[in-house]
């Protein structure tokens, strides 16, 4: 018997209001973006070996536009979000803060925001 054969109600409804639900969705998306980036990143770095200093530097030149710096920041925020939410999850795995997980989430997000603003300040000082 497959559960999927019969009618089910309100598919898609559920607890979209729950912090945990959103946190998890964003976590998953950020993780997948990072996996994609990881491969791009390795490929970019390998240009150094493949094409030598010239190719590599032309890549960096290409990246040196404000928009791409902005993309870089987006990347950093994805890492920060994923990392700090990841910290929350590892803490929960260790049995820490399961009942206070929402609080822990927001504390982590504040830390992530602080770290991100450091990077952003640095990046803007560079662009401006």
């Amino acid at each position, binding site marked *: *018997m497959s559960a999927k054969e019969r009618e089910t109600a309100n598919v898609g409804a559920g607890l979209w209001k729950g912090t945990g639900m959103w946190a998890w969705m964003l976590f*998953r998306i950020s*993780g*997948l973006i*990072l*996996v994609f980036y*990881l*491969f791009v990143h*390795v490929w970019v*770095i*390998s240009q*150094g*070996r*493949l094409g*030598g*200093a010239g190719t*590599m*530097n032309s890549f*960096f030149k290409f*990246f*040196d536009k404000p928009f791409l*710096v902005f993309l*870089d920041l987006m990347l*950093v925020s994805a*890492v920060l979000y994923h*990392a700090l939410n*990841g*910290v929350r999850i*590892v803490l929960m*795995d260790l049995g820490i803060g399961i009942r206070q997980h929402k609080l822990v989430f927001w504390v982590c997000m504040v830390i992530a925001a602080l770290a991100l603003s*450091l*990077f952003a300040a*640095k*990046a803007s000082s*560079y*662009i401006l």
Partner: protein
Amino acid sequence: MAMRTEVLEGSRGGMWPWLGQRVTAVLVLVTITIHLVLTHYIAIGHLSYDNIGARLAGGAVVVNDVVLLVAVVFHGLNGLRMVVLDWGLAGSGGRRVFDLVLWLVGIAAVVYGIWALWAWVS
């Protein structure tokens, strides 16, 4: 009541990938912080072939980046595997193949990555 328990039997994996994900998560957390601070914070906008070489000359940074590479490849691909499993895309038939492909991709990525880094080290 119709019982479906036989469908549940014989599932593999479990704790080790799960634990691996946590351990690599912690490793990545440490190494990526170093990596990010060095590249995206201190050196943002000043990246160049030589600049990278200068940092990597330290040796410790090479170790950091290699650990990061290994850990993040495992972590990322295992994460990908979890997502794919959740959406049921790797049903029992394709599972072995899927896992094998991930291992191959992972090993290839690590080897390729280290090979690429060696542009600066050597």
